[in-house]
């Protein structure tokens, strides 16, 4: 079934809040008492999608766990901008160890809580796409395979941003990064095989896998809350645009996430025990150009030396997602 949007009451569940909805139907983020897990004063860039996504996700997890939560953090933007010594933005118990071991640390925290009999304390591990899809991938796969009682959240901004925008295995084809320059016959990142982590997580058969974006807050909160109601290994892949690394206006962060979903570039779905159980349909379909054009990392595909052939290949990826997940309303799903 997936998230069921409220389609009326002026703005329905499209907006963060809605004064016309019953209080119990409102979002965590609309509440005056939301936990603000990551507080003001952090050093994320203007318009940072990851800072926003982390607050959305962890506040929802806090609400669902009655504020009995421990967060484990991999190295990455989120860790760097939130905890420059001697300051911390976190208002939850929070631990950071290495770039690649967050899933293993989280496994340990969960085991410790179990040994101490603190069954009400829940564990979340979080990291960027670098620590999740590249560096910590082995630890993460192990955590899935053991079905440890951890919710792992990957904030995917499609490259290593805090070290200067280097390519990761989550970087899309043709995108410019510091290590995939727009030169040669196929400028930008290669059209590789891709590394679809949500599907890899699903292949482990773990209880819950979901994708979400910062443009669909209510869907995201629904998924975090649902994941927190379950036990065992759970994985949420959250799409968080990066104004710095993508070359977009700081005010366009949510728009970019919305266009990624509406173009089919980022399918939003959920799966239980390896089977897709719900998708968030495309509301107003757009061609991938509309998503790519505002981003400087794709600028070399447009303009004087335009590469419509490469844009067409990216459109083909979006079309495949749309087919595969049944993202259009009229496909009878």
């Amino acid at each position, binding site marked *: 079934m997936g998230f069921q949007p409220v389609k009326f009451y002026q703005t329905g569940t499209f907006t963060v*809040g809605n004064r016309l909805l019953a209080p119990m139907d409102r979002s965590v983020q609309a509440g005056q008492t939301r936990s603000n897990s990551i507080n003001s*004063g*952090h050093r994320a860039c*203007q318009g940072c999608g990851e800072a926003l996504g982390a607050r959305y996700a962890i506040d929802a997890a806090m609400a669902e766990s009655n504020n009995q939560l421990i967060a484990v953090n991999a190295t990455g933007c989120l860790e760097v901008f939130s905890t420059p010594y001697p300051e911390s933005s*976190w208002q939850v118990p929070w631990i950071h160890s290495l770039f690649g071991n967050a899933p293993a640390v989280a496994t340990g925290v969960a085991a410790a809580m179990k040994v101490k009999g603190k069954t009400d304390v829940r564990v979340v591990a979080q990291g960027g796409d670098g620590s999740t899809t590249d560096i910590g991938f082995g630890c993460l796969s192990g955590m899935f395979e053991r079905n440890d009682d951890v919710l792992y959240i990957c904030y995917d901004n499609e490259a290593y941003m805090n070290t200067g925008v280097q390519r990761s295995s989550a970087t899309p084809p043709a995108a410019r990064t510091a290590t995939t320059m727009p030169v040669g016959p196929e400028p930008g990142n290669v059209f590789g095989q891709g590394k679809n982590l949500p599907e890899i997580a699903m292949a482990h058969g773990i209880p819950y896998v979901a994708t979400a974006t910062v443009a669909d807050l209510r869907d995201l909160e629904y998924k975090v809350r649902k994941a927190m109601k379950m036990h065992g290994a759970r994985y949420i892949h959250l799409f968080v645009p990066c104004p710095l690394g993508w070359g977009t206006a700081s005010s366009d962060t949510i728009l970019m996430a919305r266009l990624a979903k509406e173009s089919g570039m980022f399918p939003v779905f959920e799966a239980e025990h390896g089977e897709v159980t719900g998708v968030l349909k495309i509301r107003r379909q757009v061609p991938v150009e509309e998503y790519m054009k505002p981003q400087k990392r794709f600028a070399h595909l447009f303009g004087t030396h335009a590469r419509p052939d490469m844009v067409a290949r990216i459109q083909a990826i979006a079309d495949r997602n749309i087919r595969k997940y049944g993202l259009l309303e009229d496909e009878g799903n």
Partner: protein
Amino acid sequence: MSKPFAITLKPGTSLANLTGTWRTERPVYINRLPPCNNACPAGENIQGWLFHAESGDYEQAWRVLVQDNPLPAVMGRVCYHPCEGACNRGQLDESVGINSVERFLGDEAIKQGWKFDAPATSTGKKVLVVGAGPSGLSAAYHLARKGHRVEIQEAGPLAGGMMRFGIPKYRLPREVLDAEVARILDLGVRLTLNTKVANIEQSMKQGGFDAAFLAVGAHIAKRAFIPAGDAAHIVDAVSVLRSMEGEDKPMLGRRVVVYGGGNTAIDVARTAKRLGATEAIIVYRRTREKMPAHDFEVEEALQEGVMIKWLSTIKQAEEGSLTVEKMVLDDKGVPQPTGEFETMEADSLVLALGQDVDLSLLEGVAGLEISNGTVQVSPDMMTGFPGIFAGGDMVPSERTVTVAVGHGKKAARNIDAWLRGATYQPVAKHEIATFDKLNPWYYSDADKTVRPMLDMIRRQTSFDEVQGGLDETNALFEARRCLSCGNCFECDNCYGVCPDNAVIKLGPGKGFQFNYDYCKGCGLCVAECPCGAIKMVPEET
């Protein structure tokens, strides 16, 4: 710093880092003028009253509405709703049915017996209002609420002016009009009927009035010279519509020809049809595109079987027949005679060629300027004679009920200021909330609610109201289609989308506030505000 074991950083200590210093632009909350409000001739705060209707608080919605217009149930029936033509939602799917929600609120107020708030003060000043039409009633209402003593002197036997003696019952049931007039009189406004003011200066002196508002309307039918035989039956539209209010209904015959192309021509043709005419034919010298009547009224008339003969003028009238000349439009769109004539059968000819103002009460008043048969007023609605103001159909403007109500309000504000020896200073208007200022993604898809129409047989044979109203459920639905252009409706988007927790939610009804200590000026709140109520302004250096 001593910390517990294994704790290196204290929670939330980043508050020491004031990231607001990064900012080059800052977001500020603003109010923009919704296009509907801007288009309303009566100056209603439409977005403002819809806001309350959206949450189902109809009484509060009505109270906000009547701050500007005391006749919502009338307005919800007879207004040509320019607001809906300006509505931004029209660019999304269809404009909000503002007029239908207004009518619902007006009817609800009558049903529930809601009363106006009594005036808070009494100024001891007396104002004479001449004419109990929409403009006079509106002025009387606003003056009374400001604490002045108001007397309306009306020449006719009942209040309402053209709302009673011009607009047919099938568009405005009289019990609705009576209820809204009575509520104005309940404020302490004195209404003197059957009293024609013959000399305004004298009437003011006799009654000890400090100021006067003239709103006598335009009741004298314009005539056209049409050579006519002795037995030709020619009447004017104004008297036909007026006599509909009396005991003796007009005798128009089976085949009625109406000459003219305005709303009055349509009204009289539809009336003739209801009185039993087998054919009601409008003769108009230009084309449908050029017709001054509102298109939906033309459409409704055609549906009811009224026929329209375009590009024709009447040259001669005889008993039972008319001679009509065909016209053609020239390059400038002006109709020119062709010399081709034809004969039409007609039991009666009704002239609906516009109306003139009866200016006899102003004879001998110094300083007045009359031009094209209307009284000239300055922007503050005052005539050339200090203390005498005028509005409605007797001053140059579009002649609609809504414009008249707007004149009454504007005049009342200026009269109030004048009586205090001051000048009314209108509040500067906000910039308009145009469609490009909105983020329409956030609004739910919802088509306009269609109002029920009376079935055709009853439309053709009775004076029952043609257009039905909304009920509670679909009025709420319709109100919630409002985009709240330019004005915060507390959707919490700014509060939610700020990556820096730099928006403070003050609680229901209190809105939001920026915490500039931490706002980095990214502009996400502006981009994601659905209604355009935030803007970025450069930081002062």
